[in-house]
């Protein structure tokens, strides 16, 4: 117990976390640049937009989370909500 408590783990060091994030940023940047280099075989008009998938992924997730946060205001109940009358 105490031994494992004292042990330093991978993400206890904030430098490792920021390294991981930096790797993510670099990959994202590379993937975006690749859109200019490689030709995607598009079938829909939307797809032809440069960076369509990248922008779509980002916007979709932000929308998802923001809408879900608003939905929570309406839908959230206490954990024993259904138990009250039992």
């Amino acid at each position, binding site marked *: *117990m105490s031994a*494992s*408590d004292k*042990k330093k*783990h*991978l*993400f206890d060091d904030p430098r490792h976390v920021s390294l991981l*994030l930096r790797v*993510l*940023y670099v*990959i*994202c940047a590379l*993937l*975006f640049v*690749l*859109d200019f280099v*490689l*030709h*995607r*075989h*598009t*079938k*829909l008009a*939307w*797809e032809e937009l440069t*960076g*369509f*998938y*990248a*922008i*779509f*992924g*980002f*916007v*979709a*997730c*932000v929308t*998802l*989370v*923001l*809408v*879900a*946060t608003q*939905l*929570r205001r309406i*839908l*959230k*109940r*206490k*954990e024993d*909500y*259904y138990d009250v*009358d*039992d």
Partner: protein
Amino acid sequence: MWMTELPPFVPFFIAALLALITRGRTRNLILLATPVLGGLHLWLDVSPGIVSSVSIMEYSLELMRTDRLSLLFGYLFHIATFIAVIFAWHVRDTTQKVSSMLYAGSALGAVFAGDLITLFIFWELLAVSSVFLVWARRSERALRAGMRYLVIQVSSGLLLLAGALLHYDQTGSLSFDYIGLEVPAGFENLGGWLIFLAFGIKCAFPFLHNWLTDAYPEATPTGTVFLSVFTTKVAVYALARGFPGTEILIYIGAAMTCFPIFFAVIENDLRRVLAYSMINQIGFMVCGVGVGTALALNGAVAHAFNDVLFKGLLFMSMGAVLYRAGNTNGSDLGGLYKSMPKTAALCIVGACSISAFPLFSGFVSKSMVMAALIEQGYDYIWIMLLFASAGVFHHAGIKIPYFAFFAKDAGIRTHEAPDNMPIAMSIAAILCLFIGSHPQTLYALLPWEVEYWPYDTTHVLSQLQLLFFSALAFVWLNKQGLYPPELHAINIDAEWLYRKLLPEVANGVYSSSQSVRRRLALSTKTSLKDAAKTISDTRFARLHLATSWPTGSMVFWIAVILGFFLLADVIH
């Protein structure tokens, strides 16, 4: 090995029986041998085109009918049972051991059923055998959730039976083949619609889906793994056989991919998050069945195949967390990678697979459905599914591993899960990676002939862009403090109708009827009293005719009358 006509469910039912009377290692070995031998038999000896039936009271039940579609699900269920049995190796509870085998057997029975009555029998057996995996948690909550689950599942079976009989009345056939909704049009085809609804309940169509999110998270750590494999996949199989190309399924499926992800983002119980994500994945399959082209149908069943493995893997990882940490609430977990590194790593493989990263299994099957949608010109549905794909990564791919194993350190120090669990998870993870990197192996088993290859520059690049920028969005939202925190709370869903509104209305009706009854009783009592008083005030009252007599005096007078008759008889 054994006769080819032996229906695949039989060994499982025998194993369930043996599980009753054996214990310990012997029992575990029997349970493990069943899917291995059954699966090998199915793979080596059984070919498409076998039909075998038994006659009961002049009705012939087609217990086994093989074609490439039923065989694919047959292989899948054997593999999944094998993995789940290993995962549940440490469990000593006889209830769970027996019911899990009965449940797996029922699923095989349903998949190989050649007629609708046989299907109905196994449909109900699925419900009855699986509920014990929920009840085996032995808590009040699980008991109630199991009861609700059972009512809904059994109702689905009754709809199927009613539909089957109407269908027979209309077509003169009970064979389980294409049913469809088109001919005759509209509600003339009530039989078809009822069967459709029955399948829809088990498939967790919108508004009919809460049995899944209600019961699965309440089951035992190992029970949920079995549950996640069979019921919904049998339903997808049934839809693929009975209703391929039914257009309404495209819209139902698209709705199923989208709405659960909102719930998944704000749900605290990570096993419930997985339950919502399961509806989302079934949505892709339902969409594929609705499109109905060879590519779409292949995509639907291939995705069912992959989903069993990666969703099973994710449920196993959360089962391991539940087993060790005692709960799966996002709000109470975090930092578990320190004590459960193997589980964490295997969970990430499952997360990558469900998110459809290239080289993982989800990628090679989901893309078939997406490609089929574009091919058939369903552009807007395609956009919805693309949104759902980004959403899957967000709630299942990132949220599950992040809040369980990373995020803030919740200070939980436990041990790695018992050895059998990482072994079972590893098998599932290897299969996910194998199918993802060698999709031709899975494609060769698919029922319809079609040329498809998922790995080209366009596809890999666009999928990577979609996923990495979704991850970027997660990081950004977290840094901005916009990400909704995990809270001890629940969110109301369609189940509110029958868990809150209906009971409240019933309570209201009951209590108002009670007060009406009380008032009625009171007024009757007073008016009776008044009447009694009026009579007692009259002259008759003096004759004791109007007072109430005690029972004793009545008995006395009857004795007098009887005595009189006796006397009269003697004298006579």
